[in-house]
């Protein structure tokens, strides 16, 4: 219960009335603004969870968008601007987690699964080919019976 209360309280504490990006935040330089938009799409709004600061209407998200634009205007590279935020909030703010030992399973898991699955299928097909004759002989009458049953059903 306290946990629920705290979570709700936090949500209430920082959600402002604004709606995502406001006109007064937009930078005059379109190239810089485009960079800022791109970066902010990959940064997590900490209070609203699972939204990027680009989508979020929370007050803190707005502050972070403005800070990001200030850093870029001051000549920061993309990496430097991101580092400015991770120094304060940790990797948690990155919607695309960096590749580190703790995220190896996340990043390489899908490829590993695909290869394992493909390997399993190849081995399975080979094995079945090897035992081809035996299996086929066994299942043939069964299959014939099955086909007969199905045909019977189809005709009705």
């Amino acid at each position, binding site marked *: 219960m306290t*946990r629920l209360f705290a979570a709700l309280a936090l949500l209430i504490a920082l959600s402002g009335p604004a709606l995502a990006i406001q006109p007064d935040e937009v930078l005059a330089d379109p190239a810089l603004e485009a960079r800022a938009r791109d970066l902010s799409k990959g940064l997590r709004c900490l209070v609203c969870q699972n939204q990027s600061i680009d989508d979020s209407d929370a007050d803190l998200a707005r502050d972070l968008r403005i800070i990001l634009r200030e850093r870029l205007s001051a000549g920061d590279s993309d990496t430097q601007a991101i580092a400015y935020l991770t120094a304060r909030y940790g990797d948690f703010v990155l919607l695309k987690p960096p590749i580190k030992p*703790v995220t190896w399973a996340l990043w390489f898991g899908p490829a590993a699964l695909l290869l394992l699955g493909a390997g399993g299928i190849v081995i399975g097909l080979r094995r079945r080919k090897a035992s081809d004759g035996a299996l086929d002989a066994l299942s043939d009458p069964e299959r014939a019976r099955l086909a007969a049953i199905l045909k019977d059903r189809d005709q009705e």
Partner: protein
Amino acid sequence: MIAEIGHYALILALVIAVAQSLLPLYGAARGSAPLMAVGPSAAIGQFAFVALAFAMLTQAYVVSDFTLVNVVQNSHSEKPLLYKITGLWSNHEGSMLLWVMILSLFGALVAARGGNLPPSLRARVLAIQGMIGAAFLAFILFTSNPFLRVFPPPADGRGMNPVLQDPGLAFHPPILYLGYVGFSVAFAFAVAALIEGRVDAAWARWVRPWTLAAWSALTLGIALGSWWAYYELGWGGFWFWDPVENASLLPWLAGTALLHSAIVVEKRDALKSWTVLLAILAFVMSLIGTFLVRSGVLTSVHSFASDPARGLFILGILILTAGGALVLYAIRAPTLKAGGLFQPISREGALVLNNLLLATACATVFLGTLYPLFLDALNGPKVSVGAPYFNATFLPLMTPALLVMVVAPLMAWKRADLAGALGRLKLAFLAALIIAGGAWAMKGGPILALIGLAIAAWLVVGAVIDIAERIRLFRVALGDSLRRLMGLPRSAIGAAVAHGALGIVVAGITASSAWHAENIGVMKPGESVDIAGYTIKLEQVGEVDGPNYRARRAVLSATYAGKLVAVLTPEKRFFTVQQTTTTEAAIHTTGFADLYAVLGDPATPQAGSEVTDSGWVIRLYHNPLVPWIWVGAALMALGGGISLTDRRHRVGAPTRSGARIAQVAKA
């Protein structure tokens, strides 16, 4: 009194569900026909009582019975009638009741339409359905009872979250639940088959229509949810890779794989243990989604208020259902005989590849959604996994699947001629090249978007070729082709429609992601801006009254090439009961693009300025092809529906052999 009837009906339904889960199972083991016959009547009885409870709760909402906590917390006497009714499932308790009602509906349908199933299989399927029903009825009664009273009753309710006061709420949850819960039938069939130790073509035929129905509903439900988010949340986005959205995608991916592997079981008697596993997993994914949404282990913009006690209960249900089924699988699956052999280049081979890709995609979404939880549970660092991860992993996995799915229907079973199949797709190649080239000439890129459009054309034209080949269009007389079309199995037509429709979805996602335009600015009445060839002028900003809100409404005129094409009226609504504001976007669609307008706050006056009317924040978006996403998804669901009408799938039609079996069972 009404509440007591509802409460009592739920208790009765639970008792019946317990009987339904035990007696037919015992009867099937003992070969006792009377015990097995308990299954159908219990399933129908369970549905009747859950439906009665549901009707009673609906009645309490309609008459605003504020002696019920649930009604107090989620309704208000001044709410329009539609939202009084939909308010029932806008909250945890009510939506759980809807969930269970749909579950028992499926049980009743299996009972009513399963007359031609072997009695022991039907008894076991209904028993499994009964167990799931009993578990969730107990969950409702013990942790989430919507019929609890409050004393003294307050004068009025607290109302519903205004974001939910939208017709979308009337359709999205019920249809989505039809999908989630519909997979319970495939699950029950899988477990029953494992108990019997027999999976064959007939089994695949029985499972397929239920899977098709669930899959179609889930497709439609997800699309409705995405559409709702698009027009209601006011950001112009349609998919956010949020945990709750992912939770609906997981059973969809597993269910899609199941639909395809079940074909192989039916036609070629192969992939049996894999198909049974998928049938289990599709429903387990639904249950995991329910757990994630209602337990609070992951935070999401959509989730219900969380409560660890409920989470623990659902986890218990999950462990019993999924754990039990998978233990049974580990014991029985090795005894299932492998069936027909095939070459790697064959229809089976293509379907296996499709399954591999879909399963990996499902696992990837699963991994990304739960990775933060896994790390946290291992006391590791906290990470976020968001859209950039899913875009980087999911799309590369789906791309080959999209390429292969056009070729597969043109390949023969057992051993296919790949070059021949590709040769017949020449036109699709050409179409893909032309579309990509045309887009390049018009827009110049990005390259990924060109690839996306090429794939879309490949899918749509490929589906047309599939049908044209089957009816030998232009190779025989047109009349002959038409006759062939009428004679085609409905499942072939349905598959082609669904595959082609996916192409439409891909086109919509690609174009709206790559080429959407936006203009966020301050406008004063009389001013205008240009976006994507339109000139948008702010005519005026006024105030209007709704049934239970006050709204500020902007009137924007959109002109294209000097002609007025639309008047957009975005609103900002203030709901007095909840003291909250919602934004209502205004959308003008041409079918090829949406013009999307949102009214924001009054612009902050400059410091020291005396002017109060400094203009309004207006957000304008132009989203090309975005309606195609939902039209395409609806067509996919329609394709599923067409397949469902295939005569092979009319399992319910009383057949002679079915009637015979029933008679034997009774004797």
